[in-house]
């Protein structure tokens, strides 16, 4: 079952008085199956952040549509967008985006509190997630008291606690050391094995090599994709590296088609 459909997405940024037009996304179409783990790779400026922002309903496309569970998120009213985002999407960011004024537990509770859940409900939701992510013992600490890896695990817990249809991860390993990166990626695999759909945007070949499918974006278009099939992490790593090399050496300016 397809959980996310992105159809002919186009995004043009124009300067305030309509002078300069910058084409961020030309024509992007792809879909994500339920339970899939998809990584989107691309260089800086390839349009992957724009793509993620549109899927996250933080930005509106110039044309095209995004369907989540068959429902168009482009046409959701401004008033409902926040609660839609809260209930359907979970976010993991590069710089964690935890609030220093809250303990880890309260940070994780934040989306639930915004949805008006009671404390007891929230506690019940939190327990299994905290145990799974291994943060039960530091849950009452504050973000500035714990390591980067622990912060990111708390952020993952915050993304998971609403039981979202889709987790959007923006460069989640970007601020982590190799040890923590490894831990986080293993965790992503685990939660994916539990049936959680994940869409991750990344630079890191290591991170992408853990995904079930990798999409390559260049100049605002989906340029190529690789399925894991039965490849090991190492084989996947090599395959992605090769593709990136081709991507970098082949001149595709002007037209993005192979």
């Amino acid at each position: 079952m397809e959980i996310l459909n992105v159809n002919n997405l186009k995004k043009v940024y124009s300067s305030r008085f309509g002078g300069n037009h910058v084409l961020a996304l030309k024509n992007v179409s792809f879909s994500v199956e339920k339970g899939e783990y998809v990584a989107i790779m691309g260089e800086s400026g390839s349009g992957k952040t724009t793509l993620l922002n549109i899927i996250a309903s933080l930005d509106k496309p110039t044309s095209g549509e995004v369907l989540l569970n068959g429902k168009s998120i482009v046409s959701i009213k401004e008033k409902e967008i926040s609660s839609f985002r809260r209930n359907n999407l979970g976010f993991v960011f590069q710089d964690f985006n935890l609030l220093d004024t809250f303990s880890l537990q309260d940070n994780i509770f934040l989306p639930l509190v915004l949805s008006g859940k009671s404390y007891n409900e929230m506690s019940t939701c939190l327990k299994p997630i905290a145990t799974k992510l291994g943060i039960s013992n530091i849950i009452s600490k504050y973000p500035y008291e714990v390591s980067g890896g622990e912060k990111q695990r708390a952020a993952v817990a915050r993304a998971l606690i609403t039981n979202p249809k889709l987790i959007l991860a923006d460069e989640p390993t970007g601020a982590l050391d190799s040890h923590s990166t490894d831990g986080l990626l293993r965790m992503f695999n685990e939660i994916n094995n539990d049936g959680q759909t994940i869409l991750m945007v990344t630079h890191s070949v290591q991170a992408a090599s853990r995904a079930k499918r990798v999409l390559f974006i260049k100049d605002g278009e989906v340029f190529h994709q690789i399925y894991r099939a039965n490849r090991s992490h190492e084989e996947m790593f090599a395959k992605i590296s090769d593709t990136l090399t081709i991507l970098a050496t082949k001149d595709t300016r002007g037209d993005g088609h192979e």
Partner: protein
Amino acid sequence: MNNLFFPKLAVNTIKKNGKFYFPYILTCIGTIAMFYIMCFIESNEGINKMPGADSLEQMMELGTIVIAIFAAIFLFYTNSFLIKRRKKELGLYNILGMEKQHIAKILFYETIIVGIFSIITGLLFGILFSKLILLIYTKFLSFKVTFGFSVSVYGIKSSLFLFSAIFLLILLSNLFQIKLAKPIELLKGGSVGEKEPKTKLITAIIGTICLALGYYIAITTESPLSALSLFFVAVILVIIGTYLLFNAGSIALLKSLKKNKNYYYQTKHFTSISGMIYRMKQNATGLANICILSTMVLVMVTGTMSLYIGAEDALKNRYPYDITVRKSFQDKSIDRDKLLQSVLDAISSQGRSIKKINDYKYLSFSVSYDNGQFIANSQNQYGNSEVLTFITADEYTHLTGKTIDITGNEVLACSNKRELDNTFSLFDKTYTVSDKLESFPMTSDFAMFLMNVHFVVLSNDVVLSQILNEQLEAYGDHASWPNYEVSIDIDGTDDEKIACAQAVDNATRDKVKDDNSIGYRYVNYTHSRQMRAKQFYTLYGGFLFLGLFLGTLFMMATALIIYYKQISEGYDDKERFEIMQKVGMSHDEIKATVRSQVLKVFFIPIIAAAIHIAAAFKMITKLLAVMNLTNVPLFFWCTLVTLLVFAAVYGEVYTLTAKIYYKIVG
């Protein structure tokens, strides 16, 4: 490098930082204009030539000094917000290769530009508005003087000198800060991660005790004279309590709210409580300052306003007759008929006719009341002292025309507050109150507004002299003597009445020379209500003017301090709100959170101030009674109106601040 490079850069920075610089410059201009106007009024020849203006000149001089000190503190304070905000920008200049001396140059030009601009504009506004303020001032004083438009050279000189000095000091302190700072620190500015504040339970408890004690004193003090001495104790206790409670109590309260899971984990409370805990850590002292300052403004404005509006009442209380002549018998015997005749002669020589006249001899002194017994009290002990005023039955008949029939130690009594018991003992002798009087013909005694006064009619002169002798023995040098008082209402205009009173004064004073039987001491005087009225209005008008003037300045200051606080917090909160938005907080929710947070920070101090005022209300009415004002409803309405005006101004600044704050975070 081009010579104009630094001045240009300075102008640009001022423009770029308009959100911070604009209110700062506005404050500078406002303060300078107000200082000039104060100097202008203080040194105004026309006013200083008026009778009774000596005290005014002193009062206004005091006002000038207060404004000068306040201006210095206040401009420094607002500047500290500015420089904190600017640190990042200056750090960037430093990293991009500017040396510290170049940064110093930018700061130098900035200060010069801001300084010159605000001094010139401030003086212009000051000169422009000085005439208007002067008119209001003379209106308050009931002075009928006409002034041409004039410029005070003294005012300009003083303002130039004072504000150049302040700007120079601000520049020096900024340079000093830049010199000490490292570029990285400059870049980081104020944004350093902070730990959650600890609960200081003991401090909170001490604060509560101080506040409770202050309130207790304010509410339970009954006697105006003890209110006078206890007022400052209460004020200091409340100030200490306010600081401690804002610092520790607020955090203790918020943390206890946070512990209440069902309350804390609600959308409206969740973000605002956790945010407030941090806010309070940084701002508690500032908020306490604002609270104290607002309370001061409110007390000052309402007090002076009530005094001024109630001046007419106060005059009538204090001087019920147009002319009052009082002479003390001391140990001499005076001829009251001779004295009365000289007063009457003086009045008729002025061509005035008498509308009403009372004359009587009485003995009045204060005693301590202790469980049915009156005993001699030692000096300066006002706690439970009461005043006894005696006249004889004959004197009562002379005053009222009514004959009364009492003998020996029987008395008639009339009290203003506490009633006398049926029998009481005075200097170990027992007196029986055979009847209570509804009213008493002589009520002019000033003491009756402050203390318990009993008017007692004695059966005859023998009893009176007996009490006098006992009293002379008990008090020695501090003893009181019988007085003879003549109270007269006459016809004529105010000026005629004043002239007449002057003539009476001269006539009775002359007697001192001719006749040794009339002693002259402070107990001997001639009062004219109309003359006193002028002094009242000069004094109270001066008070009111100063109260309003300083009140406006302080109010401007508090509002601005809060504005700066909120704006700089807005920049700190920006990131927080961005994160919350990403996690799924809607624009409306953010707006609501911002509103409730800003609202709390804005109105907690003013609500605390209102509570302080409510607690102090009774005590202040007692203090006003010392100043002859007994009209409590008047004071109540003045307080309410002032509070509302204050809240309205506050509300206006709040709306503006919330808007800008939202723009920053949204």
